[in-house]
């Protein structure tokens, strides 16, 4: 067949580059002319995601310490949510990660490692000193800061820990002063009762040294395992010692057993007042009021503190977590630590640990619900008030004593650790002679 023989129909069916290009050009031209109407203002509409920074919250939510630590977790979650609601830090949203170490020191290590390997910017957590001491080497290895909110015994200082709780010189020693003084009833025989781990033993070691400087001796000393519930024998031992008050460093839900045993032995606050270092409003939730009314607790903060800042803070927490929720000493410290970290990150302009620590040491203070909180660069602790509260029937406290000013921290009181000093602005820890706490017991 010649070219001249090709019919129009046959020509129409032939593959032709010219026809293909013509059709493509026509389509593209049509698309181009319609594009402004079709696509102007259109995008996939995927909302931009703010950069997130993971933050570790390491609090026991089950086990013996859950009674105390769960509320601390909630308060720090609340602080983080408030920060996120306000736009985050340096434009980043904080992403809290809160695994459960189940009140077991070994699990604290496992969970902390998981969090640190996951790249958290900082760790907030631990309740007992055992757990803190288990986690701190990891923080040093990963060069991340641990923000610890609970009262502790001192005799320790790590450049990777910010200590937010009261030291014995901010809590136990002023409480002893109060007990020995007229406001505390001029007590003479203080029984030292505690859970068997680092904090109670060290705090009581310091307390004994301090009592000696006041020409007094403890009526007795007893330690029971953490989580122990049967205090009937312990109460008999206390009564037998002739003690006129008890300084209670028992931790966690063991306090339920202690006050149950006191009630069973018909020992009330008038007969034998108990001053607890680790019983706050939150622990009172689990205690029958009639068993604890009139006893005392010591700390740097009580919910009944009558200030506008405190009322506003409590209202904010209750709006989020429920109207029956209460606030306490460790919760207040936990909140302040998150705010302190935020202020330091913003001051440093970075989440880098060393930059944040430098910003902290440069001097930061914040207004906390319990008063002004100042970071002490030398010891990496906070200045704290000492307050003593008497337990009411509504599971709250009447504040019966408050230190005149916030007390500066001293992790190595010279009465107990002569020659030991700590100043991270001048090289760190100055070591004195070794002190054996166990040997003193």
């Amino acid at each position, binding site marked *: 067949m010649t070219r001249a023989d090709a019919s129009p129909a046959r020509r129409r069916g032939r593959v032709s580059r010219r026809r293909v290009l013509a*059709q493509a050009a026509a389509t593209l031209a049509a698309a181009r002319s319609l594009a402004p109407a079709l696509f102007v203002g259109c995008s*996939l*509409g995927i909302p931009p995601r703010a950069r997130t920074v993971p933050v570790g919250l390491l609090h026991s939510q089950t086990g013996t310490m859950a009674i105390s630590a769960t509320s601390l977790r909630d308060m720090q979650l609340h602080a983080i949510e408030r920060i996120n609601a306000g736009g985050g830090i340096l434009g980043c949203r904080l992403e809290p990660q809160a695994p459960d170490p189940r009140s077991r020191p070994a699990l604290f290590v496992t969970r902390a490692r998981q969090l640190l390997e996951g790249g958290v910017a900082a760790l907030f957590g631990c309740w007992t000193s055992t757990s803190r001491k288990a986690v701190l080497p990891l923080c040093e290895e990963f060069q991340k800061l641990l923000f610890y909110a609970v009262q502790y015994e001192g005799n320790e200082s790590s450049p990777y820990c910010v200590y937010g709780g009261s030291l014995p010189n901010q809590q136990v020693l002023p409480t002893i002063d109060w007990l020995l003084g007229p406001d505390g009833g001029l007590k003479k025989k203080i029984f030292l009762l505690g859970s068997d781990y680092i904090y109670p033993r060290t705090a009581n070691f310091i307390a004994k040294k301090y009592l000696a400087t006041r020409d007094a001796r403890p009526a007795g000393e007893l330690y029971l395992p953490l989580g122990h519930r049967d205090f009937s024998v312990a109460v008999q031992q206390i009564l037998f010692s002739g003690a006129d008050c008890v300084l209670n460093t028992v931790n966690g839900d063991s306090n339920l057993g202690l006050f149950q045993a006191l009630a069973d032995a018909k020992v009330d606050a008038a007969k034998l007042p108990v001053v607890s270092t680790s019983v706050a409003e939150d622990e009172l939730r689990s*205690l029958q009021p009639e068993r604890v009314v009139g006893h005392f607790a010591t700390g740097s903060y009580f919910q009944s503190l009558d200030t506008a800042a405190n009322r506003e803070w409590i209202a904010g927490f209750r709006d989020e977590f429920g109207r*029956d929720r209460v606030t306490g000493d460790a919760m207040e410290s936990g909140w302040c630590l998150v705010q302190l970290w935020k202020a330091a990150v913003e001051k440093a302009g970075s989440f880098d640990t060393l930059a944040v620590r430098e910003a902290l040491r440069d001097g930061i203070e914040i207004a906390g619900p319990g008063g002004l909180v100042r970071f002490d660069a030398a010891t990496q602790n906070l200045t704290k008030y000492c307050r003593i509260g008497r337990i009411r029937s509504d599971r709250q406290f009447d504040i019966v004593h408050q230190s005149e000013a916030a007390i500066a921290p001293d992790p190595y009181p010279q009465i107990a650790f002569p020659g030991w000093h700590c100043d991270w602005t001048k090289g760190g820890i100055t070591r004195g002679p070794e002190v054996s706490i166990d040997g003193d017991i």
Partner: protein
Amino acid sequence: MPTDFFWIYDIPTARLALLSIGVFVAVYWLALIFIRPFLRPFVKNTRGANAIDGYILSCFCVFYGLLLGLVAVTAYQTVSEAGSNVTREAAALSALYEDVSRYPEPYGQNLRWLLRDYTRYVIKYAWPLQQRGIIPVEGTIRAEAFHDRLLDFEPQTPAQEILHAEALRQLNHFLECRRMRLFSVKSSLPASMWYVMLLGAFLTIALCWLFDMTFVAHLSLGGILAAYLGTMMYLIIDMNQPFRGDVSITAEAFEGLYARMNEE
């Protein structure tokens, strides 16, 4: 759907529908322009090629339509089941909350507080994670904390024994529903199913390219078919993940419960 494509659920629903339709139509049109001229000679010289192509296409569409229909129904059932699980979990939680409200203090208050904490976590933290296709783990911790505290209670009277037994039964039901919800976070069509569906869509379109008709008629008729294929794909994509996308299961049941818990 392969996990690499999960970003697709971040696109608002209306735009996702338009995108899906647009992609199918664009593929059809572009191939019509650039590929069809090379395919047409194969059928051009065959007598009754359009009829044969039409017959094959209609046979193919029966099977493919069945596949799409069944897949769409399965996807809908998955969403529906996941929605029912969420409602059942919230209902079990509510019943459990009522049960523990009858416990003596301080147990009652502590148990209520733990359930509130769980509910709050589900709304504030678990749901956003589910919407990103991540199974939330911290709810388990809260459920365990409640379980532990519930087991701490020792009934003192026959009435308390009955109440405690009922609370434990309700707890088991709640945990079962919760587990079902977590399972459904990752439930979706297997990747092989997607490959078969996409291949089917491609073949449907390819068969249309083989028709011999005017260019404009080809563009419009094939475009309509491609647009409908795109619509079906959008429907399946949207229902594939029960907790993802604009049209997904919300935390409404838990939000209502949490509001009621906080009213008390």
